[in-house]
C-alpha cells in the first residue's frame, strides 16, 4: 500500500468506526465513490477492527503475553563448562561444586601456572550490573586487606558472556560439610568463630559488610584448620529501599517469598533487619555469626520453620531456647550468643571486635579451667573432654600451663562469677558435648496442587499431605524439607508396568543447581517455577524420595540426565538398573510416616531414608 493510499484508508476508517452500523455503510460508500478496491480495503479493516475488539487482540500487555517465555528461556540456559574448556586464560579441570551463586570449577591459570578455584556466576547475578560492580569493588577491598581468614580473590573476568571470579584454591571443606561429618567440640567451635570474627573485624574496619555469613560461606583448610571466609560482598543487597513503588512489597521480602531456599540460598541466617529489607550494617554480620555459633553448639538452627514465612516470623519474634538448656554449653557462651542475636541491632555487640574479645576471653578461661581440671585430677590427662577445650600445643608446654593456672586462680578469686564448673565437664560424656549425633533420618514432604481449567490456573492452589485421587487437570508441585542436612534425590516412576522407566526430578540444573546437598531447614521445591502435570496414562505415579546422610553414588551417577534434552529420563540401562536395585533394597523397610492435614513427616532409623509417595491419577 502506498503512503497516500494508507492515509486515505485510515481517514475513512477512523471516521467510519465512530458511526453506527447503518450510517457507516453509507458513509464508506460515499467516501469511496467508484473506487471498489478502496471500499473493500476499508470494509475489511472495519471488520478486523470489530474482531480485534471482540477478541481483545493485543489488548493486554506484551510482557504478560510473553511472560512465560522469559522464564522458560532462562530455565534452559545453564552455564555448565566442560573439562578442558578454556575460559580466558583458565583451563577447566573439574567441577568442584554448585551453589546459589553459580558453579565452582577447579581450573589452571595458564599464564601464572597455578591452580585456582573458578567461580562462574549464574546469569541471574551477572546480569545485575550494579550488584556486580559493588561486588567487584568490595571483594577487591576485602581481598586487599590481606587478612589470613579472608579468601584471596585473584581476578574478575568477563569472557563470552560468562562472568567469573578466580580465587585462591583451598583444600578443605565448608563449615557446612564439616558440621555434617562430625560433631564439633566446644574448643573447635570457638577456634572457628574466633577466626570468622577476625575476618569480619578486618572487613568491618574497611566498611565492608559480608551480609551472608553462614556455614556454607566458611571454609576450613584441611591441612591446618585455617578458616577462610568466602564471598565478601556477593550477598544480595538489601539496603535498597523500593517503597516508591507504592504498595509493592520490598524487594527482599518478595525475593524471599517467591524463591524459598532457591535464589537466596537459605534464609535462616538472616538478621531481622535483613528479613524486613531494612537498612543493614555491620551488625547484621554479628547476628549471622551468632546464629552460626548456635547451630554449631546445639546441632540445630535457632530459626527454622516449615516455610520461609514461618522462619521469618521466628527470626522477628522468637527467642531460641538457651544454649545452656539445649546443649551443655557454658553460661558465658549463651550470654555471648544471645547478645549477638538481639533482635534490636542496638542491643547487639556493636563491633566484631567486641564479640571477638569476649569469645577469646571465654576460650582462654575454658582452657585454664581444663588445665586446672587436668592437674587436679589424677586421671584427667586421659579424659577426652579435657582435650576438647585445651589447645594441645599449649598443654605440652608445662611452664605456660603453670602460668595459666596462676591466671585462673586470680580470675576465680577476683570475679568468681562463672557458673561453668569443672565438675560439670567431668560428668559429661564426650559424645554428648555438645549434643547427641542423630541416629535417624527425618524428612517432611507436602504437595501443592493447582487446578487448571482451559490451560489456566483455576482457584487458589491447596496443600496436601499426599495420596488422594488426582484429576487430570490437577498440576502439582512437590515440597520437601528436613531439620537435618543431607543428600536429597527425587525420582519419578510412571504407572506403566511394561516400561519401568525412572526419571530424575531432583537435583537438576534448575533444582538446587544440580546439587543433591540440602541444608538443614532448606526447602526443596520441584518444579521450581512451573507445575508437574500428569500425562494421559492413568494409574499410580511413584515419587521416590531418598534422603541420605552421605551422597548416594548410584543416584549421583544419574544426575547427568537432568539436562534439557533428556529431561531426567535415565537412558543408560546399566545406570537405570543400579538405581532400581538401590530403591528396591532400601525400600524393604518402610519409614514411619506421620500424616498431618497438610504435610507428612517420615522417620527412618539409620542413615538412609527411602520412601515412595504414591500419586493416583485419572
Amino acid at each position, binding site marked *: 500500500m502506498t503512503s497516500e493510499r494508507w492515509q486515505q484508508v485510515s481517514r475513512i476508517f477512523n471516521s467510519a468506526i465512530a458511526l453506527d452500523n447503518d450510517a457507516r455503510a453509507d458513509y464508506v460508500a460515499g467516501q469511496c465513490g467508484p473506487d471498489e478496491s478502496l471500499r473493500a480495503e476499508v470494509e475489511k479493516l472495519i471488520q478486523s477492527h470489530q474482531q480485534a475488539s471482540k477478541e481483545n487482540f493485543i489488548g493486554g500487555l506484551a510482557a504478560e*503475553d510473553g511472560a512465560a517465555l522469559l522464564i522458560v528461556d532462562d530455565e534452559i540456559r545453564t552455564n555448565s563448562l566442560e573439562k578442558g574448556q578454556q575460559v580466558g586464560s583458565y583451563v577447566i579441570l573439574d567441577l568442584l561444586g554448585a551453589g546459589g551463586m553459580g558453579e565452582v570449577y577447579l581450573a589452571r591459570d595458564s599464564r601464572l601456572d597455578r591452580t585456582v578455584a573458578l567461580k562462574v556466576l549464574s546469569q541471574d547475578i551477572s546480569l545485575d550490573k550494579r550488584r556486580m560492580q559493588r561486588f567487584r569493588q568490595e571483594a577487591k577491598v576485602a581481598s586487599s586487606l590481606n587478612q589470613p581468614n579472608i579468601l584471596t580473590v585473584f581476578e574478575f573476568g568477563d569472557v563470552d558472556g560468562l562472568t567469573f571470579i578466580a580465587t585462591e584454591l583451598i583444600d578443605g571443606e565448608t563449615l557446612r560439610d564439616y558440621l555434617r561429618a562430625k560433631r564439633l567440640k566446644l574448643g573447635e567451635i570457638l577456634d572457628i568463630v574466633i577466626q570468622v570474627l577476625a575476618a569480619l573485624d578486618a572487613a568491618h574496619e574497611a566498611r565492608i559488610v559480608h551480609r551472608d555469613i553462614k556455614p556454607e560461606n566458611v571454609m576450613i583448610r584441611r591441612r591446618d584448620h585455617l578458616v577462610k571466609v568466602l564471598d565478601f560482598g556477593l550477598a544480595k543487597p538489601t539496603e535498597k529501599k523500593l517503597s516508591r513503588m507504592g504498595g509493592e512489597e520490598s524487594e527482599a521480602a518478595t525475593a524471599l517469598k517467591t524463591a524459598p531456599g532457591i535464589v537466596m540460598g537459605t534464609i535462616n541466617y538472616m538478621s531481622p533487619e535483613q528479613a524486613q529489607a531494612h537498612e543493614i550494617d555491620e551488625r547484621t554480620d554479628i547476628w549471622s555469626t551468632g546464629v552460626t555459633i548456635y547451630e554449631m553448639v546445639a546441632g540445630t538452627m535457632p530459626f527454622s520453620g516449615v516455610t520461609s514465612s514461618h522462619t521469618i516470623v521466628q527470626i522477628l519474634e522468637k527467642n531460641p531456647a538457651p544454649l545452656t538448656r539445649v546443649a551443655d554449653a557454658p553460661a558465658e557462651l549463651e550470654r555471648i550468643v544471645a547478645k549477638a542475636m538481639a533482635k534490636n541491632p542496638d542491643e547487639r555487640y556493636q563491633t566484631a571486635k567486641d564479640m571477638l574479645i569476649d569469645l577469646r576471653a571465654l576460650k582462654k578461661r575454658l582452657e585454664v579451667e581444663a588445665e586446672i581440671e587436668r592437674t587436679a585430677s589424677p586421671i584427667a590427662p586421659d579424659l577426652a573432654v579435657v582435650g576438647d577445650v585445651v589447645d594441645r600445643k599449649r598443654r605440652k608446654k608445662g611452664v605456660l600451663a603453670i602460668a595459666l593456672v596462676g591466671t585462673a586462680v586470680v580470675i576465680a578469686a577476683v570475679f568468681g562469677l562463672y557458673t561453668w564448673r569443672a565438675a560439670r565437664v567431668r560428668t559429661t560424656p564426650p559424645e554428648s558435648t555438645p549434643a547427641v549425633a542423630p541416629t535417624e533420618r527425618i524428612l517432611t514432604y507436602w504437595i501443592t496442587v493447582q487446578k487448571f481449567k482451559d490451560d489456566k490456573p483455576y482457584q487458589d492452589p491447596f496443600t496436601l499431605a499426599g495420596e488422594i485421587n488426582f484429576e487430570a487437570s490437577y498440576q502439582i508441585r512437590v515440597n520437601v524439607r528436613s531439620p537435618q542436612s543431607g543428600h536429597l534425590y527425587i525420582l519419578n516412576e510412571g504407572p506403566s508396568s511394561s516400561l519401568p522407566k525412572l526419571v530424575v526430578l531432583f537435583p537438576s540444573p534448575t533444582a538446587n543447581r544440580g546439587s543433591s546437598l540440602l541444608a538443614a531447614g532448606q526447602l526443596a521445591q520441584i518444579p521450581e517455577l512451573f507445575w508437574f502435570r500428569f500425562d494421559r496414562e492413568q494409574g499410580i505415579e511413584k515419587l521416590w524420595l531418598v534422603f541420605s546422610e552421605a551422597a548416594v553414588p548410584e543416584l549421583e551417577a544419574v544426575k547427568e540426565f537432568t539436562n534439557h534434552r533428556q529431561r531426567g529420563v535415565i537412558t543408560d540401562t546399566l545406570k537405570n538398573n543400579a538405581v532400581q536395585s538401590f530403591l528396591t533394597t532400601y525400600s524393604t523397610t518402610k519409614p514411619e510416616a506421620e500424616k498431618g492435614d497438610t504435610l507428612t513427616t517420615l522417620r527412618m532409623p539409620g542413615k538412609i531414608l527411602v520412601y515412595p509417595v504414591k500419586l493416583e491419577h485419572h
Partner: protein
Amino acid sequence: MARTPPQHEITQLLAEWREGNQSALDELYPLVYDELHRLARRYMSRERKGHTLQTTALINEAYVRLVDQKNVHWANRSHFFAISAQIMRRILIDHARRHAYAKRGGGAQQVSLEEAAIVTPDASAEMLRLDEALKSLAEMDSRRSQVVELRYFGGLNNEEIAGVLNVSENTVTRDWNMARAWLYQQLTGRGAN
C-alpha cells in the same frame, strides 16, 4: 558513596538523546536493556505467586534505579519510557526467537510426569509474527507503530503516549484503532497485501 556513576551517566545520555544525539541512544540501549531484563525476570518470579507483570511498574522501577532523580528534566521520563517500550519489545522478541529455536532443536522425550510450561505452544511464534507485522507497519506509518509499541510493549496509557509523541489523546486513540485493525488483519491472514 553519594551516588553511583551510572545514574549520572544515564541521565546525561538521556539528555543528549533528547537533544538529538543518536549515538547517545546506542550507549543507553544496553544499559537499559540489562536493567529491564533483570527486573522482568524478577517480576516473573513474582508472577508465580499470582501477581501479574505490570510493565509500567517495571519500567518505573528501572527508571527510579537508573536515572538520577535530582537532576532530571521533565521530558527525560517520557523519553525513558519510549526507549523502554522499544527495549521491552526487543527483550521479548529475543526470548521468543530463542524459545522457538530451542523448540525446533529439542527432541524431547515423553516423560510420565512432565513439567508443564505455561507457554501456549504458539506464544513465541505469535510474538515473532507480531514483531514482523509491526516492522511493516513502521515502514508505512512509523507513528502508528510507535503507538502500538508504547502501549502494548511499554504499558503506557493513551494520555502518556500522547505526551511522549507530542500529539493529542484523540490522535493516539485513532492511531491505535487503525494500527490494531491492520495488525490483526496481517496476523489472521485476512490481509490481501
